[in-house]
């Protein structure tokens, strides 16, 4: 059978995305900045290490409970910079707009970009606008790139997780993807679900001030917690044991997951992080996280181990054990 078309699953953040990156991009663009495949690239300069990242946003619907495509475009890029220990400073902003898009909607999206930028203390310093004819794009796509200086004395990478590390999660899983899904499919919940979309740079700063030796930070976006853990397990060549009972998921999110047959561990988040913290600093970092509004529900969900490498093992609610695999295929397209 021929596989000569791009499938939606190639954009899921799961296995097919990884295959595409490896087989298509890494083969041609192999260089020391790209090779680590962290959330941002590190570029050496005479003045220190610069972090550089880019991301495109195609979320549907563009307005959703808890945010819109503009807020997402700022937070996503700020978070990618934050996860390698950079202090985000400047963003670029590119819009691809479909002919006929309401100007009032554009205004409110630009306002929310501004608000999010103020909140994250970053400046939009360059930009571009393209308009394409009706039907050539779906309403509005946004690309942002960002730079920031990496804090001296930190060394965060997906390849730095070590046996013994505690795995901390900053809060409830799945809010973003479920809010998008409910908005798109018209599913109503008893308690309204909101995206967790938020800039994590301030939380990260507090955590790194308390413990500069945190080994790895990641925001579990597309593919969810399960995929992110597997990426880190592979990059660091370690095993992990995760305690399912400890993973916080809201009742409303769980309820819809049960109905639709989804697994909250694979749902995208836009305002959560996981931290791999050396054993002696676990309690300290957890306390700092809980003191921050974006980490108040933080919890220790598991440990890095030298067993099972590079697999992630889930200790299930009833005490059984099973492999927690990467996202395979796709859950839902255009969630970010």
């Amino acid at each position, binding site marked *: 059978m021929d596989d000569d078309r791009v499938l939606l699953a190639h954009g899921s953040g799961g*296995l097919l995305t990884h295959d595409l990156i490896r087989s298509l991009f890494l083969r041609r663009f192999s260089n020391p900045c790209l090779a680590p495949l962290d959330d941002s690239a590190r570029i050496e300069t005479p003045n220190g290490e610069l972090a550089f990242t880019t991301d495109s946003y195609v979320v549907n619907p563009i307005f959703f409970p808890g945010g819109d495509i503009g807020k997402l475009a700022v937070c996503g890029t700020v978070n990618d910079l934050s996860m390698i220990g950079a202090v985000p400073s400047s963003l670029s902003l590119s819009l691809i707009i479909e002919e006929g898009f309401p100007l009032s909607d554009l205004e409110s999206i630009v306002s929310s970009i501004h608000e999010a930028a103020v909140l994250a203390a970053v400046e939009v310093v360059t930009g571009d606008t393209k308009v394409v004819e009706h039907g050539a794009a779906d309403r509005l796509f946004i690309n942002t790139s960002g730079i920031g200086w990496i804090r001296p004395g930190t060394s965060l990478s997906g390849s730095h997780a070590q046996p013994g590390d505690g795995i901390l999660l900053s809060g409830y899983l799945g809010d973003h993807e479920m809010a998008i899904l409910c908005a798109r499919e018209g599913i109503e919940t008893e308690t309204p679900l909101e995206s967790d979309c938020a800039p994590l740079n301030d939380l990260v700063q507090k955590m790194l001030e308390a413990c500069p030796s945190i080994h790895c930070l990641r925001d579990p976006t597309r593919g969810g917690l399960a995929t992110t853990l597997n990426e880190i397990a592979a990059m660091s060549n370690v095993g992990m044991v995760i*305690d399912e009972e400890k993973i916080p998921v809201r009742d409303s999110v769980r309820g819809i997951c049960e109905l*639709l047959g989804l697994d909250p561990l694979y749902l995208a988040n836009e305002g959560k992080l996981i931290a791999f913290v050396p054993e002696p600093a676990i309690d300290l970092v957890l306390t700092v996280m809980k003191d921050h509004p974006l980490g108040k529900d933080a919890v220790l969900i*598991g440990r890095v*181990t030298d067993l099972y490498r590079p697999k992630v093992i889930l200790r299930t609610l009833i005490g059984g054990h*099973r492999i927690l695999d990467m996202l395979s*295929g796709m859950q839902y397209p255009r969630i970010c």
Partner: protein
Amino acid sequence: MKFIDEFRNPRLAEALVRKIRAATKRPIQLMEVCGTHTVSIFRYGIRGLLPPPINLLSGPGCPVCVTPNADIDFAIALAQEKDVILTTFGDMMRVPGSRSSLQKEKAQGADIRIVYSPLDTLRIAAKYPQKRVVFLAIGFETTSPSISVALLRAREEGLQNVFCLNCQKRVPPALKTLLQAERVRIDGFLLPGHVSAILGVAPYQFIAEQFGRPGVITGFEPLDILQGIGMLVKQIEEGRSEIEIQYRRVVRPEGNPLAASKIFEIFEEDQAQWRGFGSIPQSGYRLRDEFKAMDARHFPLAVEPPLEHPHCRCGEVLQGVVSPPDCPLYRVVCNPENPVGPCMVSVEGTCAAYYKYGNGGRGLESPKDENPTS
């Protein structure tokens, strides 16, 4: 959602496991018929909690998996028609037919839409009156009443452009075929909870009466499954063979006659083709004569004869004769990204569960990791 937590309580699970261990005196092979059971068993690591003499076999209870290539090929041919919108449950998208899959056809421009309810098909049909909207009807007795209601409503609403490619199946005839062939010893059945909510107990009585094996209609939460297994072990050790209900909060002995009757307002029993089993008498449905106009099988399409991958062992996996690692393709060329057979595609497929959750959960536990967060 508190009611779910009660059925996932670790202390109760431990107590049930202890009871099963104490009661199990000899090697026992049990078949969980339903794909939802298979997934739950793997997802909660239940195989690893059971004493070694108990072997769980996965049965033919994944509707996607038992759909033969010929039906998938026909659905693909329908989707290739310019004036057809094909609606389907999401699981069918990635199932490889002989030469393509619905997912690949969609990428090439076919209008294929994933629906959560058969009724969504009516909404689409009303919106696109110039299109023929074909629902790919896959499912067992659980799904058939809602499919029937949707088709009946399409008739009531006068929607002339709603059609059905019927691939629905009935579970009990497949179990009978399995027991008649006896290619593998099955000491007892975990019977499907939701299918039985429609059917009740009667259609399974032949298992106990004719074949002398026990069956327990079981729910899908981990404690349901552990309790169902415990009830089977007890029957086996006591030399009984009866059809019992563990899933009492949902299943009544008489089933749901109203829902069952809806099916027969529009369908009648017919033989059906099953992957791995071939044709099984009375194991499917055909549209009654007065609804023949809705039958998409009558569309004049040229469909090439189906091809089977010569080494794919999905058919035997579905009968519990081999387990996925026995298949030469498993993990070597067949994986969830590039599935060769349907059992690797469906979320309820046995191969996918093996692949995703790893060896059925046996051999993963380690005393050192009992409590990773304490």
